[in-house]
């Protein structure tokens, strides 16, 4: 559906907030905490983009959607395009809202943990928890003070305890200490770069947080510099698929018509979990336990040491 950019607000050097309204002037649908919209656009060189952005602000009914986009110089160009080419009055193709990061009812402690621009879904969650009168802690991890965008808006939310952690001044956060021991009913919601979420997953594992008490929304590329092409052999289908860095193993299997199951494609659900018979996986999911990783991998985000990997598929 066509939307118009009605306002653009700067938050520091790297983040721009875009406000969007329906081009036909109709009201926007109600949305819940953790929801996102999907933007589709093409840059001047013809590259097509589909990007998911969390809605920021108070969930419910609103006149305009608000999204915050961080400019990623080393990304594949989507955020740079939005920063440079989109102005007030620009038209955008938008679908949603969708929600794959909903806030669940909880009896115990609620922790919101954001890394950098991963703060975006936490704002609506903080509003929702505040409205429920539910106390919560919001841990906001960033490199430095000027990277703590939208902090004033967060601090204005009633009952919100916002705890910034700045790695430049105080070093890396002890994630195990941050989440603490698990008590029945506790839950945490974390959004940020994959490395942070993996660290949280491991800390949660060590302290016996059950899987359903951990909620993750990840973003950012999982492919890493230094990834080399892989030869993926499938022992049951008796096929060999070559996968180049930049394409996920899962996407290569789907393209080759292999029978695979999957859901999130973000290393969050484990539905693409495949048994590994040979090879050394490089795990980049945020959902598997060490025991699960000992015998298998998420093909949607994980990679492997150079050479051959044999999956039981």
């Amino acid at each position: 559906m066509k939307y118009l950019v009605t306002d653009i607000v700067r938050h520091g050097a790297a983040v721009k907030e875009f406000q969007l309204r329906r081009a036909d002037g109709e009201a926007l649908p109600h949305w819940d905490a953790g929801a996102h919209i999907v933007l589709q656009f093409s840059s001047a060189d013809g590259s097509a983009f589909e990007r998911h952005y969390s809605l920021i602000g108070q969930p419910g009914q609103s006149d305009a959607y608000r999204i915050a986009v961080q400019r990623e110089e080393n990304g594949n160009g989507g955020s740079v395009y939005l920063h440079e080419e989109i102005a007030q009055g620009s038209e955008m193709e938008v679908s949603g809202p969708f929600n794959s990061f909903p806030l669940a009812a909880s009896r115990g402690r609620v922790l919101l943990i954001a890394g950098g621009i991963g703060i975006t879904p936490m704002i609506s969650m903080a509003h929702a928890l505040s409205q429920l009168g539910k106390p919560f802690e919001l841990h906001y991890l960033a490199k430095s003070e000027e990277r703590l965008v939208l902090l004033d808006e967060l601090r204005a939310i009633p009952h919100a305890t916002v705890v910034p952690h700045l790695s430049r001044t105080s070093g890396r956060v002890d994630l195990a200490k941050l989440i603490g021991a698990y008590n029945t009913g506790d839950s945490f919601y974390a959004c940020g770069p994959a490395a942070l979420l993996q660290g949280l997953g491991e800390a949660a594992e060590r302290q016996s947080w059950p899987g359903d008490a951990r909620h993750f929304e990840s973003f950012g590329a999982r492919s890493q510099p230094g990834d080399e092409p892989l030869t993926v052999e499938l022992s049951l289908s008796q096929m060999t698929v070559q996968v180049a860095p930049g394409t996920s193993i899962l996407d290569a299997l789907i393209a080759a018509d292999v029978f695979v199951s999957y859901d999130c494609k973000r290393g969050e659900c484990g539905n693409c979990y495949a048994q590994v018979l040979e090879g050394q996986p490089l795990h980049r999911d945020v959902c598997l336990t060490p025991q699960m990783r000992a015998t298998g991998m998420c093909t949607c985000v994980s990679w492997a040491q150079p050479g051959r990997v044999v999956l039981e598929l």
Partner: protein
Amino acid sequence: MSDNSNFHAGERAVQESAGEAAIADRNIAVLTNTVIAGARPFIAKQFMAVFSSVDPAGAVWASLVFGKPGFLHTDTGSTITIDVPERERDLADPLWDNIAKHSDVGMLFIELGSRRRYRVNGSVQRLDAHGAEVVIAEAYPNCPKYIQRRQLRQMGEPRLPVPSAHGKLLRGSVESIIRNADTIFVASRHAEAGADASHRGGAPGFIRQLNETTLRIPDYAGNSLFNTFGNFKIDPRAGLCIPDFEHGQLLQLTGTVSVQWDQNDPANETGGTGRFWEFKVEQWILRDTPQQLAWEYLDASPFNPSVQA
């Protein structure tokens, strides 16, 4: 985004209760009305399929049917052929009589050895001396979670009739099959949307027997579609099929289900969902498989929540 014609009202209501409607909208993208190309050879090499069917009184049954690889096949992807000739059908299994009278059928092709499964719902358009053909309404792959790996090492020729027993109370060998089960199949149905066959797995002991007619089963996190629970919301009748891999027996139970939300779960039996379902048994059948089967147990799913003794 609150209306999605892929789901019936029961499914939608349960997705919303679980707070997973938006996830269901995302995950339903894998649903098709034909079998995807990659799954056709998968179906053709299966030696086992799970069926759900409905008897003339409306009771729902789950069945396991075995055959030599190739006995299930789909050539165009729009129908599935089941080559089980009349002389090889165990008539103690309600399936054959049910599909002769009521065409709704749910199918699950599950390869326990590789934890892969594919679900197909449809209706029987042909049932004759050679076998059956099912027209597909919905097909989709399911995730590998909670599947214990087993390989079939040997399958004998079908010999019929095989011993079968019937009852209403859960006692003796029936009770011990339930206590040791790590793999069960669930049948459910919706009057318009059809029948569903699905899998539930867990560590042995994950099914608790509350009394001589009632089972309580934790509901682990799944694909958020809630096809089975959605059906229960509209029609609580259900069928279970519990294989006893060691003794080559199948326990089929029919009854009704009540779903329990937000249960106190101090031992974390549900893996965090707080959801259980209670199955009230009305009738059971215990019978030997027509073919002798030699299974090798490989390992449990690493996704299984732990079960306390």
